[in-house]
């Protein structure tokens, strides 16, 4: 069962929560709506379910416009962030709820309900706790019950609103793998909302990245991660360092440091923002026009990788670098020391609006005023030589 959303908008007062969004979800696909809070992803999900009505645009579920259909009639399974399990009912009754409220002629027999509910509880591995009440369960178990309850009505699509948002990190990881396996088994068209890029990258077939009520990019996880369409997508997916510079005939210049930007070869001169992921910065022995100098402030060991926090010598901006642990050990770095950093891979975006948030993957929705004019273009801009081992 497919979902087609075309040109859907929703305003709350003067605030455009969802602004002319179009999205197609193919039958059997698992799509993540990813974005910061307030970016409109949950509102879109709720409109697909019928819990919210769009101001304009159409929503088509398996070929049928659902504009006039209430939540009850849409046959969607909806899973809430905080589970929304009925506290006064056992797990069994929670899962059976959707079957018991059916009109008499559509309602399965008691024996039928029993076997269907037990099958679902088995599927979520909670059949032995059928007689328990929700408050006697852990968060992960509750969310599995909520999922079983949503599946009990045999929905055409499954919608999940931040399904793992209220769980701790370990359970969250476990549960999302479990959800992926489950989806591979039952192939139910599913859409889930998340603000956690790792979750979206790991679970989804495709990701739609939301920002300020619009979709910035839709694509497979690898595609959005490796080829972000916009500056926002780049900085939202994973940690990143952000540099201000200018781009001129295929080369970006960050106050003297040259970075390849061949995709902008036809741009004569424009302010640009350069993003470099922490693992795409190399520490080199000698300075060149492709590197810049920085002071090491601080190192943090995070399991197999070491994160270095540095400050640029010329601009004073903070920079983050991630190295594998053995490599870090070879380099023999000391806090306060001078290092030369060379971007191995960078994404350069023409800075049209200057409205993207701060670097390093933090989210900031505020409208940032136009920043200081970019430094003068380097007179002899040259393409960057590929990095050699230091």
């Amino acid at each position, binding site marked *: 069962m497919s979902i087609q959303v075309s040109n859907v908008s929703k305003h709350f007062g003067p605030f455009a929560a969802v602004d002319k969004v179009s999205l197609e979800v193919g039958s059997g696909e698992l799509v993540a709506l990813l974005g910061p809070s307030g970016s409109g992803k949950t509102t879109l999900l709720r409109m697909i379910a019928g819990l919210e009505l769009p101001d304009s645009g159409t929503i088509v579920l398996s070929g049928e416009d659902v504009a006039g259909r209430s939540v009850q009639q849409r046959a969607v399974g*909806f899973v809430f962030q*905080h589970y*929304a399990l009925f506290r006064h009912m056992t797990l069994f009754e929670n899962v059976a*709820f*959707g079957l018991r*409220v059916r009109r008499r002629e559509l309602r399965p027999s008691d024996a039928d309900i029993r076997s269907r509910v037990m099958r679902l509880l088995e599927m979520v591995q909670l059949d032995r706790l059928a007689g328990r009440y929700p*408050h*006697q369960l852990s968060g992960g178990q509750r969310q599995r019950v909520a999922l079983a309850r949503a599946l009990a009505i045999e929905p055409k699509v499954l919608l999940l609103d931040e399904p793992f948002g209220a769980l701790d990190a370990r359970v969250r990881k476990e549960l999302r793998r479990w959800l992926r396996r489950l989806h591979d088994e039952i192939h139910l068209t599913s859409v889930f909302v998340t603000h956690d890029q790792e979750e979206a990258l790991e679970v989804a077939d495709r990701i739609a990245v939301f920002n300020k009520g619009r979709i910035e990019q839709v694509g497979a996880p690898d595609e959005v991660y490796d080829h972000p369409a916009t500056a926002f997508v780049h900085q939202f997916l994973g940690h990143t360092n952000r540099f201000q510079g200018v781009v001129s005939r295929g080369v970006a210049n960050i106050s003297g440091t040259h970075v390849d930007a061949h995709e902008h070869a036809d741009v004569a001169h424009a302010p640009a923002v350069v993003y470099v992921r922490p693992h795409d910065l190399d520490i080199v022995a000698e300075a060149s026009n492709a590197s810049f100098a920085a002071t090491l402030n601080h190192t943090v060991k995070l399991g197999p990788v070491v994160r270095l926090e540095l400050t640029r010598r010329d601009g004073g901006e903070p920079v983050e670098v991630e190295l594998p642990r053995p490599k870090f050990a070879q380099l023999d770095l000391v806090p306060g020391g001078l290092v030369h950093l060379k971007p191995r891979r960078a994404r350069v975006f023409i800075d049209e609006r200057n409205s993207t948030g701060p670097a390093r993957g933090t989210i900031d929705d505020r409208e940032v005023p136009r920043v200081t004019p970019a430094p003068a273009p380097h007179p002899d801009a040259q393409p960057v030589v590929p990095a050699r081992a230091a």
Partner: protein
Amino acid sequence: MSVLKRPHSVLPGFGLALGYTLLYLTLIVLIPLSAAFIKTFSLTWESFWHTVTAPRVLASLRLSFGASLLAAAINAVFGLIVAWVLVRYRFPGRRLVDAVVDLPFALPTAVAGIALSAIYATSGWLGGPLESLGIKVAYTPLGVLMALIFVGLPFIVRTIQPVLEDMEHEFEEAARSLGATSWQVFSRVIFPTVLPALLTGFTLAFARGLGEYGSVIFIAGNMPMVSEITPLIIVTKLEQFDYAGATAVAVVMLLGSFALLFAVNALQWWMRHRRGEERS
């Protein structure tokens, strides 16, 4: 040293606090109540039985218990609606309406009684039109009921309100997404959630109604066998210096209301127990 095993508490002075609680309850509640029992024991069994089974006393007990239960039940229904409207809807003057709910708490009961009888008397604003419809409120059991509904309303509204406020919209949305109709959402999700609070409110309103005196006696007319409430019987006996007779009736009333309150508490305990909540 203490032989009581108890879990470690963040607040010190368990012994002191418990001792204080028992002393306070004894002074404020138990001693006055036991005085009523002790005074009653000055009667012989026959004269006690004779006093409490007098037709006039029995009629008043029927009226007091019956009207209090009925008023609490009516308040349970309409108080639930009032609480629902106050919690779920935003309308101009909502805060004012919210404050009006508390008036029966704040008003001296005699003032309420006089106001009610002025309105429901044959010459009053409502009494006249109702009379022409053949409904007589003042000086009848119906008047007693009206007064008890009046004083009991805030108990229901104020106990349900916080529960409704805490109840997330998500529960209703979840139920609707599973196909439940509005009535099913109410009867299967909302009502069971507020039921414990509703029972508490019912109990409070009932207890208040049973002991209510000031607001009832003006509108009731106090006709023996018809509209005379038990508290009035007790006061009448006191005025006739029949202290033992007064306490005898009081003891019967006390036992009756204790039995009812105990039953409601047991029901609540059973509901919680069934949900396995007593351990949390």
